[in-house]
């Protein structure tokens, strides 16, 4: 799967990157598509991909059953959208989930490429490569003025949505999120808590993504996203250094306690786990901790979600604690 694994920089602060293209095909309506028509579209896309055997061998074609546990767990790992899991449809995806082509969304096709760290360029390149392969064989709903036509006017033009998930716990506690919202808004980007339960984003994870899709080129959107992300990352880094020099004991205390919980807990709920993992991520990037890579933390964060784990709430809490103890076995406090 090496071909479809994308890793970007700032892995300790930029958790992951996603790029999605919305596309529709000529001759099919967007709504009230019959099951046959939907299958026809899925087959056409699958055939188009199979015209390039080197690419096709990385992909599998599966049916997504509406509301199935399999579908829900794919939502938690961000591989498919909640809408696809709810409606059912088809998924053409690489084994590691890095690339997923969804059929059954409000648009005929949603092509998504995911990577770890800050890698919008790499993800975009891959998305374009796959989109051109498909577009060269199936006529698209495209208008010379409006670009790619989509069910929702908010996606029209490039059909591109690019997002980066950032870990901003210090910016959050310093009250800088509203400033970030304003700064992003002015540049056509939006900020949202990634696990937004309660009044704050759990664990300080925020998602930055473009709102504007028309009148701006794909490259321009990607460039802007990278620029904005690096600016924010820089701010978070500065805050971390300032806080660590002024309140080192408080900061290391929090980090080390989180390590203690993850290393010893016998049962743990999702939110507490995410909060602790957030502290561990801070610890790793501040060089208080060593022995685990930030990418491993991120992967684990997905593995401990309820539908991925399955079973009853009690069983899940135990299983989650087990996974986390296993993850932190090699984690060491080095201060």
């Amino acid at each position, binding site marked *: 799967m090496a071909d479809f694994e994308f890793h970007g920089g700032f892995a300790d602060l930029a958790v992951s990157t996603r790029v999605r293209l919305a596309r529709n095909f000529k001759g099919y309506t*967007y709504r009230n598509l019959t099951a046959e028509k939907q299958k026809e579209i899925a087959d056409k896309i699958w055939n188009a991909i199979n015209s390039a055997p080197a690419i096709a061998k990385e992909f599998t074609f599966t049916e997504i059953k509406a509301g199935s546990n399999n579908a829900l767990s794919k*939502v938690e790992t961000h591989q498919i959208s909640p809408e696809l899991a709810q409606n059912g449809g088809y998924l053409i995806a690489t084994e590691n989930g890095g690339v997923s082509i969804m059929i059954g969304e409000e648009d005929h096709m949603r092509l998504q490429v995911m990577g770890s760290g800050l890698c919008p360029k790499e993800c975009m390149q891959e998305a374009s490569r796959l989109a051109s392969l498909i577009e060269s064989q199936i006529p698209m*709903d495209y208008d010379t003025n409006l670009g790619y036509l989509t069910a929702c006017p908010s996606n029209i033009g490039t059909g591109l949505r690019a997002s980066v998930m950032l870990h901003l716990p210090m910016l959050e506690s310093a009250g800088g999120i509203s400033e970030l919202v304003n700064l992003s808004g002015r540049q056509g980007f939006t900020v949202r808590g990634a696990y937004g339960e309660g009044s704050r984003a759990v664990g300080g994870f925020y998602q930055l*993504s473009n709102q504007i899709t028309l009148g701006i080129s794909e490259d321009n959107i990607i460039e802007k996203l990278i620029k904005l992300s690096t600016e924010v990352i820089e701010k978070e880094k500065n805050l971390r250094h300032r806080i660590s020099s002024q309140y080192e004991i408080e900061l290391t205390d929090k980090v080390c306690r989180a390590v203690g919980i993850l290393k010893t807990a016998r049962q743990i709920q999702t939110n507490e786990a995410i909060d602790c993992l957030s502290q561990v991520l801070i610890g790793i990037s501040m060089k208080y901790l060593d022995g685990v890579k930030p990418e491993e933390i991120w992967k684990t964060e997905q593995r401990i979600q*309820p539908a991925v784990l399955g079973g009853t709430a009690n069983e899940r809490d135990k299983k989650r604690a087990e996974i986390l103890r296993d993850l932190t076995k090699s984690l060491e406090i080095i201060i």
Partner: protein
Amino acid sequence: MLCQHCGKNQATTFYKENINGQTKQLALCPECAAELTGETPTFGSLFDSSFWNDDFFKNPFGTWGNSLFASPKQAISGGRRCNTCGMTESELRRTGRAGCGDCYNSFSDILLPYIKKLHGAAAHVGTAPKQVETNPLDDLKTRLADAVKNENYEEAAKLRDEIRRQEGEQNG
């Protein structure tokens, strides 16, 4: 106070979510609170609650986007239909979604101003699919307009003749 989710039980918890700095608050009963935020997501809660709401896949203009469409007066007046997919004007205004590619033509008077408002632009500048063949005449016409604008009449005359020649070829 009654739970704002089920409307039946006594509310005991406040549930808050924060999107783009705007806080939404709900008073919930223990069951609904567990359902919306807790560890045992039912199918409904998985899609309704912000906890699992995967914003990435959603319409980024969600909260205010559709409100531009949803003027009740306009919704009632809509009797037009898209010839291709049968979408009515009122449906379009209610859902905020096009029913097919041709809806952008059928309802261009509604959709184009809306698009312009959303994106601050009305013309695509990104990539095009390979198969879309642009008419070479379009390019010549744009150049002609530019030449006229720049008072480059000699160039404009040449372009005009070339356009006439090519139009003759295409028609004949």
